């Protein structure tokens, strides 16, 4: 039975490896940041800056682990027990879900940090192929026949919900608030969507790498990132006449952070987002900083001025919008019919 002997040796070696790793991990603290899709590049840079700052202040080496995915999916994972110390999600509604379904987060989490706990904002723009062959200038062009629109699934993706609400706000304005017509218009828009990915990043690769669709409704930061990654001569950004002020919030998952003994560093981590250095990095990575004073003016000049609606003022907050549009059987379920 040569086979089994060799295998048990391999198994023993693997176990040894594991225990060695566990021993190593105990030496320093690690923080887990559960985030949404388009923040990968930003937090990669930000984590390095924070770790350096923390080391300089306390002498402790801190490691920050990252998990990225659709915002709704990530919130679900935290509810199901993913040990996040901090969540940095796409919208307040997802953090609310964690606060509602678990006792790990206080209900008033948004009041714990400045600006509704949103250290940076963004908005929704269009990304089209170079030269804009379908001549897309505004939301009204997205419902035209023969235009393929790429946007993720609002059920799982936070960005997709911002996309949806921006489209809704435009239709409401253009159709003078006639709800039946607005519904019909948004239904027409989603009829032009060939694939609903689960997260914003999935939609971006569908559009940019796989070459599907004429226009991607996208986070502004994601659109800039595509231009950077794939070359500015392949894609154009189109700014619609009306968009939405997206405030991606951050919060300490106190229950987890306390249990892991990470509360102090988790709080410091989120506060660091509001420092001049954090704000500067946000602007560099295409997020609009709430305090632009420290940011590089060249970074700020990239953000176009656009008329923005706001979730609290125009939609009555996330819990109302969630119930009205995205809950089971709500408006999105009524209007969305898969095309194939």
């Amino acid at each position: 039975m040569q086979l089994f002997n060799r295998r048990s040796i391999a198994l023993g070696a693997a176990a040894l490896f594991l225990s060695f790793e566990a021993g190593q991990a105990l030496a320093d603290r690690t923080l887990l940041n559960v985030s949404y899709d388009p923040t990968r590049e930003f937090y990669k840079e930000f984590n390095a800056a924070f770790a350096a700052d923390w080391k300089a202040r306390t002498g402790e080496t801190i490691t920050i682990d990252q998990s990225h995915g659709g915002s709704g999916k990530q919130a679900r994972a935290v509810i199901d027990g993913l040990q996040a110390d901090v969540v940095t999600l796409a919208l307040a509604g997802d953090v609310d879900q964690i606060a509602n379904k678990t006792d790990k987060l206080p209900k008033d989490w948004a009041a714990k940090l400045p600006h509704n706990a949103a250290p940076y904002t963004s908005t929704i723009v269009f990304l089209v192929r170079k030269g804009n062959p379908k001549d897309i200038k505004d939301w009204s062009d997205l419902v035209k026949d023969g235009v393929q629109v790429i946007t993720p699934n609002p059920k799982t993706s936070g960005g997709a919900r911002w996309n949806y609400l921006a489209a809704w706000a435009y239709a409401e304005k253009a159709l003078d608030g006639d709800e039946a017509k607005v519904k019909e218009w948004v239904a027409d828009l989603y009829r032009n969507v060939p694939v609903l990915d689960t997260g914003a990043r999935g939609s971006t690769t569908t559009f940019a790498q796989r070459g599907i669709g004429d226009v991607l409704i996208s986070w502004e930061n994601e659109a800039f990132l595509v231009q950077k990654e794939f070359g500015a001569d392949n894609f154009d950004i189109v700014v619609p006449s009306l968009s939405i002020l997206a405030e991606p919030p951050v919060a300490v998952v106190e229950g987890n952070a306390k249990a892991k003994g990470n509360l102090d560093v988790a709080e410091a981590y989120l506060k660091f987002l509001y420092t001049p250095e954090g704000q500067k990095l946000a602007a560099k990575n295409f997020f609009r900083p709430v305090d632009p004073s420290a940011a590089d003016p060249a970074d700020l000049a990239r953000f176009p001025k656009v008329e923005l609606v706001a979730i609290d003022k125009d939609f009555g907050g996330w819990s109302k919008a969630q119930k009205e549009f995205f809950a089971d059987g709500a408006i999105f379920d009524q209007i969305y019919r898969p095309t194939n």
Partner: protein
Amino acid sequence: MAMSDRFLPLAHTPERATSETALTRAVLIAIALLFLAAVLFLPLVTVFMEALRKGWGTLFESFSDPDTLAAVRLTLIVAAIAVPFNAIVGLAASWAIAKFEFKGKNLLLTLIDLPFSISPVISGLVFVLLFGAQGWLGPWLVAHDIQIIFAVPGIVLATVLVTFPFVARELIPLMQSQGTSEEEAALMLGASGWYTFLHVTLPNVKWALLYGVLLCNARAMGEFGAVSVVSGHIRGLTNTMPLHIEILYNEYNFVGAFAVASLLACLALLTLLAKSLLEWRFSDELAATARRH
């Protein structure tokens, strides 16, 4: 799927079973080869070509990334736990099913097949429902500070569930066709049950067992769906190779993604190579086993 069927042609030279013309045969073979080339070979070549698009330097660079190394290590650890476990439990289950009569045997057979018939996503979700913080055992696990899902134990469990049938499914038909006469003879001659198992049953099925283990291993390393549900996607900690490939791809790091993909493909090819080598090395013995049954 029984081994005896597979090796039957070795045992005796069959007379021409068909009377098709040479042309028909050539066309059929050409279709099969073309299909294989288009569906299997081309995608595989693409993976390696994409990985090498920016040269060998970038390829090796992507392997030195600590997150990639962690993903490779996790994949190997998971396979090193799941495969022996499934080999032992699969062997025990097929032994019980093929050599003994008991109530509920058909139920057991159906249960073994279950992981094949349900979607891997569901295989993952059942663990979330069971061990998740909101799940049945969640509160107890939290109270005792045990982390199962979104950690290595959950990934191992999901992999074990998905790959469970491979060994048993390979063994059961063979063991059933072999019958129990040799074991009965051994027992009559005074051998103990354990001795009979080790020296009669096991040698008779070792090739099928090996084949099942190799298949099980290939799937354990490549499993995506179930593992994706329970992983939590923490880079450097709970990403296996297939999950890491998706992450790299989503980060526009296409060379990195295809580099890991080519490594995963290489591991799979090595598994197949190991199987072919063993078959070739022991072809005499194999033919002998096949002839006996």
